[in-house]
Structure formats: C-alpha cells, structure tokens
C-alpha cells in the first residue's frame, strides 16, 4: 500500500475499495475535525465512540461515494450528523447545560476575539435556548455552518439538498433566531458563509 499525500479524498476512497487500508488516510485527514464537531454536539462521553462509528459507517458505504466530490468532508459530516441524531437526548441535555453556563471554548485571547467572546458568552444561554427551540433539521443546518464551518455548498452536500435551498432555509432560521432572542440581539447581516 502506498499513500500519495497529494491524492484527493475521492481518489483515496475509490482506491480503498480494493486496498481497504487506504481509508486510514481519510480517517487521519478528517478525524480531528469530525471529532471536534461531535464533541461540540454531544460532549466528551460520546465523542470518541460516535467519531469511530462515523468513520466505520463511511468505510462500509464507501462504494456509494460520489467520486465527483474531491473533498470528503461534507459526506463525512452527513454521516456524522446521522450518528449524532441517535443521541438526541444527550444533545438536548448538553444544550440545557449550555443554557445555564457559557461553553468551555477555545482559549485564544486576542483582543478582538476576547471582545467577541464576552459578547458571545453574554448571549450564550439565550443562544442555547434558541438552538434548543429550533426544529431538529434547522439546528443541523445552522450547526453545520456555525460549528463545522461548512460553506453553503458543502452544507447542501452534507444534507443532500441544493445550495439555494440551504440559503433560503438558513435565512429563515436566522430570522427565527433573531425573533427568539428579541431586539437586543446584535445580528448583522454580514456574510459569514462564503
């Protein structure tokens, strides 16, 4: 087995059909990112297990991978999302905790970011409450964009829908969030996504 570090995810996945060990390279490329996302959604108790299950599910259905997507991240996030949805109660508990206390987030402390963090932490409980109130599918989309940092097109791939559908749904979700949070909420319409 030889792994070309420049090979795209699509190449690795296609080749892994005959050389299964190559899928390990896909794990190594994307597991940290997927683990971070699962951790943010479900917390430390399930992060490891759900990440392993995500990649195992991906490995088992790699024959269905669309080779036209060179980057496997959206596909992996789609699988992770389905694994996470099996633990909805855990996620809801976690959001309840976020509602009562700000998150244990990153520790960088650049001054601009520090200011943003203060604002975010002040809004934290209300944001978490608003997240909880969102329908499951809307929450999935919002967190794919906010926490997984997927572009609209990537989120559309993960959700199996179109980019324009993602744009309009996200707009509706953000209007709803603003409504849930009231007028104090400092939403601006900056383009976070692309």
């Amino acid at each position: 087995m030889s792994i070309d570090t420049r090979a795209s995810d699509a190449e690795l996945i296609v080749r892994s059909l005959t050389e299964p060990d190559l899928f390990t390279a896909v794990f190594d490329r994307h597991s940290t990112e997927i683990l971070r996302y699962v951790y943010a959604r479900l917390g430390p108790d399930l992060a490891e297990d759900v990440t392993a299950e995500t990649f195992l599910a991906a490995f088992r259905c790699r024959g269905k991978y669309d080779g036209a997507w060179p980057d496997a991240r959206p596909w992996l996030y789609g699988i992770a999302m389905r694994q996470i949805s099996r633990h909805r109660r855990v996620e809801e508990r976690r959001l309840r905790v976020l509602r009562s206390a700000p998150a244990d987030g990153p520790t960088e402390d650049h001054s601009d970011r520090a200011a943003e963090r203060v604002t975010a932490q002040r809004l934290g409980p209300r944001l978490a409450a608003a997240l909880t109130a969102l329908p499951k599918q809307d929450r999935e989309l919002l967190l794919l964009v906010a926490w997984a940092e997927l572009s609209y097109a990537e989120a559309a791939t993960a959700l199996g829908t179109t980019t324009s559908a993602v744009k309009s749904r996200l707009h509706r979700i953000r209007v709803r969030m603003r409504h849930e949070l009231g007028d104090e909420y400092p939403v601006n319409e900056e383009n976070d996504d692309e």
Partner: protein
Amino acid sequence: MSDITALRELRPAPPPAELEAMRMAARERFMAGAAPKRAPRRWRRPVLAGGLTTAAVAAGAVAALVLTTGPGATPGRQAAAGHSRTVVTTAWTVSEDADGTVSIYLHEYANPAGLQRALQADGVNAIVRPIPYLLETGFNNKPVVRPTCNYYVTSNDRAPLAVQGAVLTIGRRALPALFVIHPDAMPPGSALFLAFMANLPHSAGNIALKPVVLGNDAAPACVPVPAKRPGQSAPTPAAKAGNPAPSSLPKAA
C-alpha cells in the same frame, strides 16, 4: 458580531491533549472495526442469573453451569466438551459458547482476580488488574477519584491491529459493557489485558482502560501517578519516565 460568529465562539471544545487522546482511541476502534472479520456472529447477550435456569432447561444446551454470587465468587470447573459454560457473579458474567467464543458482560467493575480466573478457565490468556486509587472529597462533597498508579499500554506492547480486530470485539464500552473474545485467534504468547478501578462508589462513576490484546503476556507495570499540587497540572507518568505517550488512557465507562 453576527449570530454565526456568536455561535462559533460558544462552540464547546476539548483541550488539545484530550482531543488527541480521543482521536487516537477513535482511530484504534475504527481500525479494529474495519479489519477483516472472522465468521460473522450474532450478538448474544450472556444469560444472567434471573433467566438462567429457564434458559438452561429450555435450550438443554448447558451441560454444566457455574453459578456463583458475590464479588468474591470463584469460577467453577470446565463444562463437558462441546457445550457452553457460564460463570455469573453479581459484578460480571463470563460465558463460553459452544463455538469457543467467550463473552464478558460487565455490569460493574469488581473482583478482577476472579474475572481473570474465569477467563483463563475458558482458555483466554487474560491479565486483569485493578487500578489502585484514592477517594477524595471534592467540590460539594462529591467523591473525587485519583489513581495512585496507572497502566500505559504503548503500541510496542500491543498485538498488531489485525490481531486486535480478530481477537476482540467491543460490543459496548459503557456499563453494562460487553466484550467478545475469540481465544483461537490469539497468537501464542499474547494476552488480553483489562484494568479497572474496582468497587468504586456509584457516585464516583466507573473508570476502566479499554481492553487490549498484548503482543506478549508480560503484564504492563502500574506506573505511579504523582499527586497533583493545587494549581499545577501533574506531568503524565509516562512522560516523566521517558516513555512514549500513552496510547490507552483511562476512560470513564
């Protein structure tokens, strides 16, 4: 600041060391799961004390049954050839199937020596060790558990990943845990290693290492864990001893 930025700021994130430990553990589990499997086998929950007699009579498959109770229970003798054998204690059940596979069903972590004997009686070269610990009182009078020493299984100690996948199937790690062992896939000289904090009070949780197949049957040493001074994070014993980073970290089950 937009709502998306605010959400990003609030995203819970683990410390980098914890993230990497979790990633390595997930990788190991992925590798074990993706390794070629031996003959497919349906999960069968070991028969517990409640339904034991009925199941045995109905199936007529249990030629000899060892039923003991209490954490100090001693496993019994081998059943007649070709038949299954089950050892039940209040903490765990070890069940050997007619096809030679051995299931460990743990509903609490206790009696490591008895578990080792039961596994060895079923042909599994097992090393089961307690992780010594101190119970301290923490915030709000909640018990805080501190290991006084711990086991660090390095990649040099482990059997190859293909062997891990062939020997050990982890049905569920959290209690009640289920592990299935295929003793005939264990290379000569290898050993199954289990370690846990035995008899922890319920409020303190359950702490165990992930089961692993060792390349040889030398039990890893329990490396003393230095006491942590207030406000200071203690170095890992492995790092202090100049060993490679631990590849198997304690995990709350």
